[in-house]
């Protein structure tokens, strides 16, 4: 875990109102695994840090993806090159790509695309073929960047690709990794109990001390999205207690 003042080096728009920020954070770029996150703080900004999955890395840079959903993310998007962002990470327990499977479906909804490029990279390195399934409400909300041997688009309104949810567009694969709104992940759990899902919760510290990011477990009790998570076996989560109304990227 590192605490860095990371200069903002680049920004690009990948869907309507959805941006990728590129930060210079060498120690994090060199150690982060798919599904792990960074906890970012900026000034002027909110009091608490906000968690972001690492989207991609390139050399000494990490990328995060966000939408302006509130005052905090608007402040983040107003920053210009060389402004610094306080960056704590890498945090959490990411995806596990076991030996054996030959194919993986990376299933994402909206900003849930965040951990998938790193997952694609790790899958490919493990010799696993990648089916990229990405859904959103409509074509202009789809993240335009995809990385798979096969790419499937899904939109609720049918404006691109499969008309329906990303989950219902997934073909047969050996394993499934998913990220998106909790409602979507609950559907993933119904269909593939062994899928690995990256959940989002409200988060305080990101380091395991505040117990604010409680994830309700099927076996009873809670553990911490920031420490044991944010990636879980889908059927291990008690989806009836995890708030379903949280969109992915409640952040700020």
């Amino acid at each position, binding site marked *: 875990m590192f605490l860095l003042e990371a200069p903002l080096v680049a920004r690009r728009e990948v869907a309507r109102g959805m941006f990728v920020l590129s930060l210079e954070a060498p120690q994090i770029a060199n150690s982060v695994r798919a599904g792990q996150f960074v906890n970012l*703080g900026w000034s002027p900004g909110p*009091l*608490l*840090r906000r968690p972001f999955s690492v989207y991609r890395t390139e050399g000494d840079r990490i990328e995060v993806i966000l939408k302006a959903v509130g005052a905090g993310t608007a402040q983040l998007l107003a920053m210009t090159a060389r402004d610094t962002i306080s960056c704590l990470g890498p945090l959490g327990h990411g995806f596990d790509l076991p030996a054996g499977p030959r194919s993986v479906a990376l299933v994402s909804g909206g900003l849930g695309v965040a951990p998938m490029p790193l997952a694609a990279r790790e899958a490919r390195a493990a010799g696993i073929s990648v089916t990229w399934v990405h859904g959103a409400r409509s074509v202009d909300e789809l993240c335009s960047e995809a990385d798979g041997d096969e790419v499937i688009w899904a939109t609720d309104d049918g404006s691109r690709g499969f008309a329906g949810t990303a989950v219902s567009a997934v073909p047969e694969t050996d394993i499934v990794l998913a990220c998106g709104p909790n409602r979507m992940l609950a559907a993933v759990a119904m269909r593939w109990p062994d899928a690995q899902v990256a959940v989002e*919760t*409200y988060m305080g*510290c990101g380091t395991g*001390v505040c117990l604010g990011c*409680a994830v309700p477990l099927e076996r009873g009790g*809670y553990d911490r999205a920031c420490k044991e998570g944010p990636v879980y076996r889908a059927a291990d989560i008690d989806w009836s207690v995890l708030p379903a109304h949280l969109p992915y990227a409640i952040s700020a």
Partner: protein
Amino acid sequence: MTVEMAVEVGELRLRGPVLAASGTFGYGTEVPLLERRALGAMVSKGIFLRPRAGTPPPRIVETPSGMLNAIGLQGPGVEGLIRDYAPQWAQWDFPVLVNINGETAAEYGELAARLDGVPGVAGFEINISCPNVEQGGLYFGNDPRAAAAVTEAVRKRTDLPVWVKLTPMVTDIGVIARACEAAGADALSAINTFVGMSIDLNTRQPRLSFRTGGLSGPAIRPLAVHLAHQAARAVSIPVIGIGGIMGAEDALEFLVAGCAAVQVGTATFVNPNAIAGVHDGIAAYLASHGFASLAELPRYLPRD
């Protein structure tokens, strides 16, 4: 110039005046970045006799310059604490006080008796912001007799330092402070979080599943400085100031207002090394104002 930062809180000598507040530091074993050199002491996450699962999510929400939390004192229970954490504390170069909780005064006493003599346990901080099941859920901390009863129940079972963490949700904090002092407290921690509420206008429901939560952070700082000051004026035992300390100047406000030491909480969530920054900033202030030690810092404590 090196400034002497050591302080005495009752019989406990601390290497510095900046302590980690209960619930913001876990059991001290989590955050690898933390610069421990400046830590005066740690107060553990609150513990009950038995394990507790805690409240369902959402447990925290950010509010203007602050946060609400309702964790529900999730924890392993006293036996888990003794097994998993106390042995580590015994190796550390700063004292660890255990924040203790109960539903009856007798439970607090039992906890103190069980932990007394366990290597690694240097003292107790009593959380009196718990509902008293023997009095229909009235909070111990809102009633001077109940606060005194809990303090006495703990005092009788241990010779280790006993601190009482006061709640701000009272009419006159001085009355509670004096009751705890008379019942044998060695020091007072002032203050715990304020009870607050935040509503989600999309769901038209409280944002926290528990409905209410404890408000912390800079939003409460002026309220906390005032209450800590009132407590300090009411008693002759040391008062440890708590409430929204983010930097050294915030801590210095509490110290000048009559506190012997301070606890830092929410700031640690934002910056795992916040305590070291507060400590170093206090030392720099003292040096630049010509004080050779923290003890020389003038206190504003009119006795009118």
